[in-house]
């Protein structure tokens, strides 16, 4: 799980081009969207694409998105539960 969290931190930084953020600065329990990282709904959609491509995880409703992107911890948990084997 910790490995997945660290991996997701780096993927978030590269996917969203967060050039001034270091992985260790991301608090895994903090609010992911609308928090200190300055992420908004467009970033969420960009991460949705990354999750589908890299983990085979599909998030296609706003309700699911709100729960999944609540925090990095929640995101990692969701990816862990739902990732498809072929994408491991």
């Amino acid at each position, binding site marked *: 799980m910790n490995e997945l969290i660290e991996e997701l931190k780096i993927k978030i930084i590269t996917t969203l*081009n967060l050039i*001034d953020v270091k992985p260790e600065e991301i608090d895994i329990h903090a609010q992911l969207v609308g928090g200190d990282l300055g992420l908004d709904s467009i970033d969420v959609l960009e991460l949705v*694409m990354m999750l*589908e*491509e890299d983990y085979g995880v599909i998030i296609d409703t706003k309700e699911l998105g709100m729960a999944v992107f609540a925090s990095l911890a929640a995101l990692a948990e969701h990816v862990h539960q739902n990732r498809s084997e072929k994408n491991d």
Partner: protein
Amino acid sequence: MNGLRIFITSMGIVSPFGEGIEKNLSTLREAVPALTPLQLFPSAHVPLPVGEIPFPIPHGNLPRTHVLAMMAAEEALKEAGGPPDAVVVGTTTGGMTATEEYLKQGEKDPVLYRHHAAGSVAEAIAARFGCRGPVLTVSTACSSGTAALKIALELLRSGKARRALAGGADALCRLTYYGFHSLQLVDPGGAHPFDSGRKGMSVGEGAAMFLLTAAAAPPDGAVAELLGGALTCDAHHPAAPHPSGEGARQAMKKALADAGVLREEIDYIHLHGTGTPENDLAEGRAVRALFDGRSVPPASSLKGAWGHSLAAAGAMGAAVSALAVREGFIPPNVGIQTPDPEIPLSPMDAFQTTDVRQVLVNSFGFGGNNAVLVLGHAGNGKGPVRVRENGESIPFYVHGRSCLTGAGDTDRTLDMLSRGENLKGMVPSSDMSKHLPAKAVRRLKRLSRMVLSLGISACAGKREGNLPRAIFFGTRWGALSETHDFLAKLFETDERLSSPTDFIGSVHNAPAGQAAIHFHAPGPNITITGCNGSFEQALFSAGLLCGEDPFLLVGADEYNEHLSPLFDPEASSAERTTDGGGALYLKREKGGATSRVAPVFTGFADAGESVIRKLIAELGGAARIRERFGLILSGIPASFREQAKRQEETFLAGTDYPHPLVDYRRFVGECASASAVATVLAVLFVEKGMVPAGLCGRTPADLGGRGILILGFGRHVTALEVTPC
């Protein structure tokens, strides 16, 4: 001023309802929804409902958007008897329908991409009908068609044209179909605007064109009068409306004022109503706020019937609204079952026959662009009397300037010139991203960065209250990096995945939208595109639309290693790839300014060299040109070299011009926005009264208190003046 009013003399439409005004009118009466699963190209997932033209479109040599636009133009000009004086077209896709097909197949032959530029739609129409006047392409996303009509309205009011063909066109293509899908803005069940269960829009296609005529009384068969219009910008978000709808309310309010119509006199509102939760809620709030407690007139959106045809949408809405006043009806809000109780509007649920005298037509787009028109019954006689007799160009004073070239920023550019070296090359990334805060620009690629950087430099030292309130942007190619990256991702994943960020960034007006957000500019936000003179045409448009407010004028183009060699004949012929641009911060007020610019001329040259005689006349004649300008900077694009040289010779022969003339592309390089750089340099030279050594001789040349004339030759001939003051 004289007693002319602006009428819709005739119009043409092709839509998912079918071809022609009569067919569209009869389908409208039946209120039959025309959304069907996508058939135009194979889709990676279950095809989403779209508003697709229900019959085969003959392709020939032209891409689908061009053909749709041409069909609508043919109908509008069927009985016109002679070419229009101007053509103004709103489009976002241009040749994308063909381009993406060729890119998918890996085609590398630039000939295949010759209709890519958004400007080629208006050019095809202008060439077909022999137009010799201004040929402008407006790309302000989903408000493009409406913005084109507003610009044409002001062109006619200015007296620079008597008859203008204007409208909007967009065809379905992968970029927009998958783009809106990636933003999760598409309703898989089909759009049903203002319904409580709405989940989004349906992408559509179509075209609507209008022949607008300035006349003292309604011409025979006039459909309606174009009473007024207004453009504003939310300056809030690249892809979402401001939740309060304040920008939209301002646009409606200003449009009513422009038309001289009171809100109580509006009988029908043709809503933008895309069906996305955010748009419909914001629009409902805006309309409610406009009427401020009074009863709201009947209102409806047709996007549940024929989808959202993007740049064509506002023009198609204007066509329906013109029919509504001519025939006396209110169209239904097709698809609505349960009106959303959160939205303070009651859209019409059925076709209703009733007298309609004045209509408000709404249209909003990415970049927070709001465009609103007011149409009236042709026999109303309510039109404001504002047409000027002789379309003279009023100058703007220069209060700030900046450029980006292969040499770097303005200082480096001047330094390089003073050493007798040229400015060719790509803008260094350190200069491009200077002044840009990391958080603000992480989502911006090359062109948006350049434009924002140019804007910030041109407005350096301007404080709150004195910042630009409108943005005018000229670009031949728009954002190539995002366009390439979006399509590359799409094709790599067999059309399963595409980037929402790249989609938002790929629209031609994305850079201007970013500038508006940065400066909180609430006024018109106009992107003119598609030719080497787009910068000059952006200034020309500013001359038509800008009042007293300060504004930012930017011209810029990026070089993209994947797309530029395919699209841009200049880029592939140049010895060194070049990009960059220039920006001016302009005002009507002189203040401490020492130079001014005036948009003088833009004309379409396909019909021969008579355009040069017209150019000389509009510049005030040969004697004035000799007296007023100490230097001509002449734009001779490589791919139009023969035609452009001939035009230049005709100009020189017609004026006996005695002072130096320099081809600016020789030192700026073959960049589509080279004229923007040349204009900024001209401002710097005029302010010093000197031209540096090496440009027109071995020693610095004294301008003798004269100005500089910047001419652009090729398919479009343009002129702007930079003069001391």
